[in-house]
Structures are given as structure tokens and as C-alpha cells.
């Protein structure tokens, strides 16, 4: 026990001796947590629209004003020919071109049938799909209203209609920040923890101080524990600051209990730090440690379910996410903060991450001792 205390003293001294890293470690997550969640809104709105109106009839004008008043579209301008409209799309000044052919009104009245054309920038497929669907819906509604004007007789036998009512639970106002802030906090916590611990042992190797520890009577698991505990405490501290920012800046108060978040984070941090130490004991230079942790971080963050949904991924990628501790914590955060889930609801996540922590740390101890 006393050896651990000595190692702890050494580790803490090393951390506090380097105030730049300490400042970065505390400031960077806080700043990013304040700024970045505001960027995270991928609702399809503000679609920039160019209208090519060759008809210039009353109907065409009515339809366009109906589209612009819907709130989804920003009218970028009216062009007179297709080439200049496509030019707008090419230069990323417009997402969607609506072309109303000449004789639009005449065909509609005389031949009962008229056409409009849409060209959508589909590089972002989902945005293109939803944008054109919105536009089609508005045109269909407009179509409906014309029809009602022309067919005067009241319907004696109305068609059966299915009404749908939509409700959004757990986040009634559809506030993106409620969802993104806890998620981003998890990512920041993970990066800080994993990188610090990954750089740690290898740094001693590079500087050469690892030899001194190897020849001293310190036991391997004492050494690993001595490395783990300081970072674990720092991690909890970063989490606390993050939760404070969430509460003060964004007014996010968990529907569940803070205790549960800390319970999970204490297990989670063990897993992440274990991963870092494992990387650290296998590589020879800090550069390698950084590259490997960058690779693992990027995969686990992008596949973590915060940015894109896990169910939409191909099956093999879903298997990868089962071994991704980040996705478990993001889900737990979402459950506890937004839905108020209790201990029983998250027990599966807790046990899984506990398993990760156990395996990774045991492995780290073994990997370290091999190198002696």
C-alpha cells in the first residue's frame, strides 16, 4: 500500500510540474464544450432554392410564394436560363433548382396536367432526398388547393382519412444541445483520458526513466495502479467541469441522477485508461502511441452513435460498435440525462464496460511485465 502512495506522489508531481499540459487538459474540453454543440444541427432547413419561372403566370407566382413562405427554403434568386441556375449549384450557392416551364398554367387549365422540374444537388444524399420531398409536398398541397377551387361541388362522401399525430418524448422542444452536449462531453473525456495514459509509460521509455523503475522493487500491478489512479482522478475532474458547463451554460439538468453518471464514468475511465496503458506498453515512441490512439479514437468516435445512427450501419460495423466503449457511454448519457433511466436500465452497459476494464487492465499489466 505504501509503495502505491509513493508512486502516486511521483505521478502527481510529474503532472503538476508541467503546467502547460495541465492547462490544456482542463481548458480545451471546456472551451470546446461551450462552442461546438451549437454547430450540431443537421435538420434539413435553409435549403437554398433557385426558381426558373418561364411561365410567369398567376399560378406559378402563387406556387413560388407558397414555397418560400414554408420556412424550409431560402429563395436565392430567380434566374432566366438553366445554365446560370446550374452555375449557382456548381458554386455551392444553391441546393435546388425549380424549373416552371412556359405554358404551366395553360396546360394545367386546358389539359388537366402540367409539369414542373427539379434538379437537386445530391452529393449529400439525405439532404437532397428530404429537400426534394419537402418541395414535392408543398407543391402537392398547392395542387390540392387549386383542385378544390375548380371542383366546386361539396363532397357528399368524403374519402376516409388516417390522421397521424406525432409526439416527441424526452425532449419535447427537439433541442439539439440536450443531446449533443452530453455526447461531446463523453468524447472529450475519452480523448483526454486515452491520450494522457497512452503517452505515459512510453514517455518514461523515451526519456529512459523506465529503467530506474524496472530496477526498483516496485511490483508491476503497483506500477500500473500508480499510473491509473492520478488519471482517473483527473478524468472525474474533467467530467465534473463538463457537467457544470452543461448545467450553467446550457441549463441541462439530468432527468436521472448524477450519482449514476459518476458510477458509470468511474468504470468507464478504468476501461479507457487501461486501453491507453495497453497502447503505451506496446509501442516504442510517443509518436507511435499518438498515431495508434488517434486511429482508435477516430473509429470509436465516428462509430459511437453520436453523429450517425448505429442501426443504419452495415452489420459488420455494428459488430465493431459492440466492442466500442464510447458508444456505451454515449448511450448511457443519453438514457440518464434525457430519459431518466435508472440503474437497472443501464446495468447491461455497466457490466459490459466493466468487462472491458477488467480485460484491458489485466492485459496491460501482463504486457508491461513481459518487457522487463
Amino acid at each position: 500500500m505504501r509503495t502505491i502512495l509513493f508512486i502516486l506522489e511521483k505521478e502527481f508531481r510529474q503532472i503538476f510540474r508541467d503546467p502547460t499540459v495541465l492547462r490544456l487538459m482542463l481548458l480545451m474540453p471546456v472551451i470546446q464544450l461551450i462552442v461546438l454543440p451549437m454547430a450540431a444541427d443537421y435538420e434539413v432547413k435553409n435549403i437554398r432554392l433557385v426558381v426558373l419561372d418561364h411561365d410567369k403566370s398567376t399560378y406559378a407566382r402563387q406556387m413560388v410564394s407558397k414555397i418560400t413562405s414554408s420556412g424550409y427554403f431560402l429563395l436565392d434568386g430567380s434566374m432566366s436560363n438553366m445554365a446560370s441556375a446550374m452555375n449557382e449549384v456548381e458554386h455551392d450557392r444553391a441546393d435546388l433548382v425549380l424549373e416552371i416551364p412556359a405554358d404551366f398554367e395553360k396546360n394545367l387549365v386546358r389539359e388537366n396536367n402540367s409539369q414542373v422540374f427539379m434538379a437537386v444537388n445530391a452529393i449529400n444524399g439525405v439532404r437532397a432526398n428530404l429537400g426534394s420531398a419537402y418541395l414535392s409536398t408543398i407543391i402537392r398541397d398547392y395542387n390540392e388547393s387549386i383542385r378544390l377551387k375548380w371542383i366546386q361541388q361539396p363532397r357528399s362522401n368524403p374519402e376516409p382519412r388516417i390522421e397521424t399525430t406525432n409526439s416527441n418524448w424526452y425532449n419535447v422542444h427537439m433541442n439539439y444541445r440536450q443531446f449533443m452536449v452530453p455526447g461531446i462531453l463523453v468524447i472529450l473525456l475519452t480523448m483526454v483520458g486515452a491520450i494522457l495514459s497512452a503517452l505515459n509509460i512510453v514517455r518514461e521509455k523515451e526519456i529512459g526513466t523506465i529503467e530506474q523503475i524496472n530496477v526498483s522493487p516496485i511490483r508491476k500491478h503497483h506500477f500500473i495502479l500508480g499510473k491509473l489512479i492520478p488519471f482517473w482522478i483527473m478524468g472525474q475532474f474533467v467530467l465534473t467541469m463538463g457537467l457544470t458547463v452543461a448545467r450553467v451554460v446550457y441549463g441541462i439538468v439530468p432527468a436521472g441522477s448524477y450519482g449514476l453518471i459518476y458510477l458509470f464514468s468511474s468504470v468507464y475511465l478504468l476501461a479507457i485508461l487501461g486501453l491507453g496503458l495497453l497502447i503505451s506498453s506496446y509501442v516504442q515512441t510517443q509518436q507511435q502511441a499518438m498515431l495508434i490512439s488517434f486511429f482508435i479514437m477516430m473509429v470509436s468516435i465516428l462509430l459511437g452513435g453520436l453523429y450517425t445512427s448505429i442501426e443504419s450501419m452495415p452489420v459488420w460495423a455494428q459488430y465493431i460498435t459492440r466492442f466500442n466503449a464510447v458508444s456505451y457511454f454515449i448511450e448511457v448519457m443519453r438514457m440518464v440525462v434525457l430519459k431518466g433511466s435508472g440503474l437497472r436500465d443501464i446495468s447491461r452497459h455497466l457490466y459490459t464496460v466493466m468487462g472491458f476494464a477488467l480485460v484491458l487492465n489485466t492485459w496491460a499489466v501482463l504486457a508491461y511485465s513481459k518487457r522487463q
Partner: protein
Amino acid sequence: MHIWRDKRTLFILFGMPIAQMLIFGFALTNEVKNSRIAVLDPSKDQYSTRLVERISASNYFDLQDNLHNPADIDKAFKKGDIRAAIIFPEHFMDQLLHSKSVAIQIIADASDPNIATTVTNYANAIIRDFQDDLLNNPSYPYTIQTNVRMLYNPQLKGAFNFVPGVMSMILLLVCTMMTSVSIVREKELGTMEVLLASPSRPGLVIAAKALPYLFLSIINICTILLLSVFVLELPIRGNLILLMAESILFIITALSLGLLISIITDSQRTAMFISLVGMFLPTLMLSGFMFPIENMPKPLQIISNIVPAKWFFIIVKAVMLKGLGLAAIWKETLILFGMTAFLLLVAMKKFKIRL
């Protein structure tokens, strides 16, 4: 010489971008598919079962649970099992046929608002289709037909958006990280003194540090492009030479950024911290490939301008997918040039001060 000596680093450097392009090219999509849903259908008549079948047959939804009483809804959500619940009323068919109107309730788990909106839209669309089929009278008078043409990406593949995004992200981060460590490493090991004492000019030292990484990154660009064309089936519609030239410019921007970080820090740990923790999320979130920049509040739109990946993302989309020439992207190119010049200038200045 330093670089070649270290076989393991070299292996990681080449292997990593390949693995990442493959994983993200296939796995990332902001489409919402296979969402797990639960259905509460107390009527279980002919129409309601048909509608449920239609919903679960679509590849947007995955029917997870048949609930039996309203109290179970909350439980199912809290366990995190389902994204949405669809609630039918009792006597669905009777109400539809006799009172001509019936209500279905869709409850979405809005703890992820993006997915909630999409899931609700899909469910509504399926129900509307179902209703149209029931009505079954196709020829209305006064019909406006809409013809939609999807430009550049007619199959609406997710990779068209994500590949240029991931490409700019990987290039920027890997290049910056590698160089940011290079000079500071010499400082830590003490070999910097040797270099400075030698008669070579500081500019030369800096250039010599960056060159091998430039070379490595060009190889990486080639593998990434080969992968995108042959494995991810993306077209290169524009001029390949232009694309390469722009990529090299972007790499130089990233290398200069790395050099600057390397010069202003004094330990590898600090350098890595800035280039990884400091740059990862801002690049991911502000470059425009994850979240549309138009949706961001004004201050963030302005901040996004200093993210080099944003400009390269625009360039890659324009040259590779839209097939445009230099005339369309001269502004973005100029911005990258400007950034590079600025970064190099600051780096030189700081470097001399330390002499």
C-alpha cells in the same frame, strides 16, 4: 532518415488511412435505416395488421416489440430498445370505414432529435402511402407532376458526402500530428542543439523536416483516391492533376500548421495534445461534412472559416464529384494558399526568436 528507420511508425502511417477510409466509407451514412420500433395495436383487425406489416417490411424500420398496454411504452423507451412507438386506436378499421377518420399516434424518442424527425417523417410517409392505396383512384383532374433529377449522385449514396469529408479530416490530422511532433522531439532529445549549431539556415532545417512527410502524404493521397474509385465506387469527374495539385497544397497547409505547433510547444505531449484533442472535434464538426454550415449560428459560421478542412472539402467535392475546373474553386485555393503563407511566416518568426 529518421522516418525510414522506424518501420513500425511507417506501417501505421500507411495502414491507418486505408483502414479508416474503408471503415468510414462503408459504415458512415446519415441515412436512418432499421430503426427499432414498437407497435401497440389493440384492434388487430385486417387494416391495422396490413399497415403494421407494411411498416415492418420497409427497410427503414425493424419491428422489435408488440406492446400490449400503454404503460409498457415508457419502459420500452427507457431501456433504450426502441426509437419510436406507433399507437393504433381500438377498432381501427371500423372507425376508418364508418366515421371516415381515424388517428394513429407516433411517439418518437427525441433524445436524438435528428433521428426522431427522420423516423417520424418516414412513418408518416408509409401511412400516407397506405391511405393512398386504400383510396385507389389515380386520375385526379388538374394535376401538377413533379419530376426530380438528382445531380451528381443519382443513387443518393452516403459515401459521396462522407468520403471527401473523411479524406480531408484524415489528411489534415495525420499531417499536422506527424510534423507537430517532429521538431519538438528533437528539442526533447537534445539533438536540436546539434542542428542549430550546424551551418544550415533555419528555413532549410524547417523545410528538411517537412519534406519527408510531404512525400509520405502524397503516397497516402494516391492510396485514398485509388480506394475511393475502385472500392467505394466514387467517380473522379474532374481533372486528376488538378485534384492532386489541390491535395498537395492542402497537405502543405497541414504540414505548416504542424510545424507551427511544433515550434511553439516544448514537449511532445503538449504538441500532441494541441494537434489531437484541440483539433479533432473542431475539424469534425465545423468542416461542413457532418453538419451543414448554413444551420450554424453566425459566430460559428465565421469560426468555421479558419478550419482548413472546410475549404479542402469544398474543393474535393467540386473537382471530384462535380467535375469542375480551377475557375470554380480559385477562391478556395487562394484561401488555402493564404493560410499556408501565414502559418509558415509565423513559424519562421517564432523559430528565429528561439535561436
